[in-house]
């Protein structure tokens, strides 16, 4: 296996850099990671760095996890979770915004395409969507101070690309593909909901009631 590691060099490098690898970000690497022996080989190789290959529940995205969780690792994980939690609301709101704007049945999922121009046109025609985007874009996670819908949408997309939730297949064209990291995020949300016993089902009812009132 040690021979093969040199073959997987760029793949290991991406993993080490903290990237999430799914069928959308890199089809070739993703296919490799689906093989048990490749993962085991990389695990062996990363042992001295205290890393191993991990995946989400349905194995649609791979990333590196700590092999042994020591105190510095715990501290890092704690901080990281704090960062994720602070960006969670803007991300979720963005997902509902896209769903509303495109009138689609479901929340975006890995492999879906986001056409920025279409989104901008639909948003410009609809004051409620415009406001939705405005408050979203000015959130510190997205950090846009622009006034135009176009600039706001671009800034939001840019930040989502930076955080690995979207990829832009062609630099010159404004369409984006949703990566598996979104699915990871939703799994995390589901986990938090279960873990913290957040009564979301009742919540919906109470919200509907307040709307009625």
């Amino acid at each position, binding site marked *: 296996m040690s021979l093969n590691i040199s073959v997987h060099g760029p793949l290991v490098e991406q993993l080490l*850099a903290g990237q999430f690898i799914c069928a959308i970000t890199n089809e070739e690497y993703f296919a490799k990671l689906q093989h048990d022996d490749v993962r085991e080989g990389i695990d062996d190789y990363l042992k001295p760095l205290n890393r191993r290959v*991990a995946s989400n529940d349905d194995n649609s995205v791979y990333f590196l996890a700590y092999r042994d969780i020591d105190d510095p690792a715990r*501290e890092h994980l704690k901080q*990281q*979770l704090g960062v994720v939690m602070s960006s969670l609301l803007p991300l*979720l709101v963005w997902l*509902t915004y896209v769903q509303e704007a495109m009138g689609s049945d479901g929340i975006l999922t890995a492999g879906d395409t986001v056409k920025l121009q279409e989104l901008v046109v639909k948003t410009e025609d609809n004051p409620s969507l415009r406001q939705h985007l405005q408050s979203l874009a000015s959130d510190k996670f997205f950090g846009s101070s622009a006034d135009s819908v176009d600039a706001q949408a671009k800034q939001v997309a840019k930040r989502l690309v930076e955080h690995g939730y979207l990829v832009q297949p062609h630099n010159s064209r404004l369409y984006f593909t949703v990566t598996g990291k979104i699915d990871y995020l939703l799994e995390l949300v589901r986990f938090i909901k279960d873990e913290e016993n957040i009564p979301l089902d009742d919540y919906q009812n109470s*919200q509907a009631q307040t709307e009625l009132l």
Partner: protein
Amino acid sequence: MATYDDDKQHLSSLFEVGAERLKLIGDNAKVLMQGYLTGGIDPAALNERTLRRLINARVLYQPDDSHELKLRHPVTQLVAALVTDESRRAIHADIADKLVSIRGFVEGLQEAQRMGDSLRVDSQMLRIDEAVYDLTAQFEEAIYSLWHRLNSNFGFVSNLSDKIRENERAQQQIKRLIDGMSLIDFDELIELAEGNPTLRKILVSRLQQQMSAHHGSLLEVQKRLVELMTRFREQQERSLLVLNMAGFLREHPGFMVGDYSYRTQVPALVNCAAPIMPAAAIGLDKPEQQSDITQLVHTLYRELALKQKADTSSVSADALQGSVQSTAAQQAVEARQQQLKEDAMRYFIHVCEAPEPPSALAFLATEALEWPPEVWLFQVLAEYNALPRQEQKLFAITRDERRISVFNHVHIIEDLVVRFKAT
């Protein structure tokens, strides 16, 4: 012979009435279509006579006391089928009734055969043929409608929960259709067709062939509907999760999750390691790699040279044109810089000579120099710093500073005083 004439007369009157009523529908097509879409027709839209004719023709009816008129169910169904309006289309799989009538026709046929009434035999045979066709057509129509709904992803309803309801409805229809199919007892049909090859062909071989094809299609549609339903449910679950979590977080801005990372068993999803950037530089300690490195450096040089060439070639046109002006401008800037430097030097000399050395800004004012104060202070400071170490020791520089804010350590230099320290 009398029955034949009766039949003929009956048929011709049937033909006339039918054609007349279809024409009636056609003449009022727009009003009827409006009624189909809005659910009711205002009697004022039609004149008295047409209204009566439409009611007599069983096209419209007036439910109890309401003022409005409605389309009768078969008419609504006809329109729905014509425009494949899946939300309104209903499929009746009343197979048992159809089978009873087929059985009745076969008995009539056998009776006519026994009596040697060849005309009646023919007409009965025709009826059987039609009844069987009806039976299969019903399945065909139902299957067509189901595929249509499936392929359009239930696009005729707008939201997901309606789609889920429509999908459930379609699945129930399939179940009823399959139940209906199981009512067809081929053993019985074989017995009925005993000794009549034409009947056998109609009732057994053709029907069986079509039914098995339909059965296959229904199972396929069913499978696809279940798959689609699973997807709908997943989408619904995700949407609700995102929507509700966003709502929850909005209402609880200070919400913090538990200390997952300090648990004995850290949840797998949370365990996402910090990135490591693998950095590398050229190693010069391996002589065997030297040739590779040399080559790398050479290509790097070549690339740089190419880049430079490209840069210069792109600006060369402008440069040629403006070169004369630009050198003149450059000279002017250089002259000013030189002047500034000399003025600063004069300040240092003045400090050495004057008994009460003025501050830098005071010197600027008394000498009426044109430099902006900020530039002037920078130049004095720069001049001081540029002095050789030995000479620097001869001067003491005092900065008159102001702190800009309590939050950081940025100070603004308001003025400078240079003093000559006589050794």
